[in-house]
């Protein structure tokens, strides 16, 4: 089994979008593990780093569309923290590109699947190069 991708999903946007993807019969990589959070702003750098410590392939933070966050600023704060985590990863010589923040709305299952496809492809390409 390939390494997992952890997706922290905001319960107001990405989580329902993932549900909708399943309901609509859209397919995405099986190694995605979704962790439901009340807002992307709940995610702290430590959560992201713990996941990498566990050896996951990538960490995604998925929140509401910009300007349409259920908690007004949660998605912006999440973005800052993802940036910070990326910087920390680079500092210790790891691949900072493996943590990413995306914005999507709850009725966007296709975008959800597209994001995961992109990430899976990127990981597969990088694995091949190694």
């Amino acid at each position, binding site marked *: 089994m390939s390494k997992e991708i952890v997706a922290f999903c905001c319960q107001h946007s990405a989580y*329902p979008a993932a549900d909708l993807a399943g309901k609509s019969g859209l397919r995405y990589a099986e190694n995605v593990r979704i*962790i439901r959070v009340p807002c992307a702003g709940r995610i702290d750098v430590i959560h992201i780093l713990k996941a990498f410590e566990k050896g996951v392939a990538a960490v995604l933070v998925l929140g509401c569309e910009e300007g349409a966050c259920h908690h007004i600023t949660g998605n912006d704060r999440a973005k800052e923290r993802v940036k910070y985590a990326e910087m920390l990863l680079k500092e210790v010589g790891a691949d900072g590109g493996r943590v990413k923040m995306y914005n999507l709305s709850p009725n966007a299952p296709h975008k959800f699947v597209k994001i995961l496809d992109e990430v899976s492809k990127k990981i597969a390409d990088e694995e091949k190069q190694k």
Partner: protein
Amino acid sequence: MEKEIGIFLCNCGGGIKNIDFDAVREKLVQISDVAFVAVSSALCLEEGKGTIVSTIKDKGVEKVVIAACSPEFTEHTFGEVLEKAGLNRHLLAMANVREQCAWAHQGDVTKKAIQLIKMAVNRARLLQPVQKKELPINKDVLVIGGGFSGLNIALQLSRLGLRATVLEKEAVLGARLGEAESFSSCDMGPMISEVESDDNIEVLTSAQLVRIEGNVGNFSVRIQKAGEEIPRKYGAIVVATGYRTQLMASSEPDSGGKILSQAELCRMLAAQSLEKQPRTVGFIFDFADENSRFPTLATLDNALAAKEKWDSEVYVFCKSVKVDSKGAEKLYREARARGIVFLKCETPPKVLAKNGRVEIQAQDILMGEDTVFACDVLVAEQQILPAEDADILSSLLNVGRDSKGFYQDENVHLYPVALERKGIFVVGGCRGDLDGGRVLSDISSAVMSIYELLSPGKIVVDSEKVKANPQKCVACLTCFRVCPHSAIQLMRAENEKEVAQVADAACDACGICAAICPAKAISFEGYTDEQIVAQIEALGTS
């Protein structure tokens, strides 16, 4: 180890085909603190719920994991089931093995299901009960703004038996409505007298809000009137402060009363007799904002009135006339049919004063030529802007505004009338450039939301779900600054230092404070750092 966790698996009446539930069960019973793993075919039906209750009571477990469909649908239902079984509803962790596992992938996904359930088990292990508590609330409503929206809301609330205070900064109610922008707008007289004679409505004119404290259901405010501060208590607050209009700067600032605003034209139209009726009337609109609802409707309405009353020639200089208001298309067609000329230009026309008239130089895109018109009067383009004191009021209420300065950006989660701070609603023109129909639906939405909130006389909230630990808090105010719902207050703990405290009523449980607190003093039950990390710990083990 004590066997404290009970696991229920649901195959959704056969709707989940690619998970081998027996294999899942075999794997899960090996976890040392799992008391039992029960497989059912429809947990959400009455029979299934009954089984959950009896099994929990029978086996005496403390925490429950349910692996079924998305918690988006059933977390609430199963929470109630847990309560029936004598457990706190927060001692439930769900694993979404249907939408995000079985239905999302082809082929056998038993392994993924096992891991998802293990993640939920890890989280369940750390869950703590969260108690509900009832808070008494004040049923009075403060309506800021005595215009069309404010008065309407006060009247409707009064009919529902709620008392309201209308706060008006001017000396009389409906002051701005005297200068109506649209000729056929309604007469406010009867409404004002109805408000003034209503026992449930108190009117405070020449008064303004100076201070607000507290949370939804229990706001304490101070109102300044005639140099005195009046303390009051309210359960909810409605902001209905309206908008203002501003003439767009034209190339010729003054031409002897020939360049008018919509309101000035309305006054001319309403006058019994005029010295000289304008034979040609020009309108400019649509260049500042292409979807400006109010200016578009006012222009169409006033253009028709000028045609009707004075039989003038009417020229409308516009860009594209596209507006999403109900009835606007009909008005536009009617205007065309009545001989009003619409001249579409890419750039705003030039306006010059000449021989006591107004000359308008425009480039008509249909003819592709420069055209020059002379009008007796010209109604210049108007911009819709937020009220002058919007910045003061928004900082008092601690609510955000959009890029143009109106309350509430069109955030889909708040739309239409809620603000990020619970118990404060925003209605009508102060929310943006709205047309009459939208204002009316705003009013209804706000009245319904307020009635739903206040009529029970109490609110039920989660007690200390998000909690700041007074021992760890260093009162750095980071949480106070970042909380989008103004739920964090500074409190003095018993004869000690000041510390942050989360107001249960105002908290919307987002966890932004818990993530940002540098001292890690804030815990958010259900999503504590440990509970999130525990789920991650289950990865890579199957």
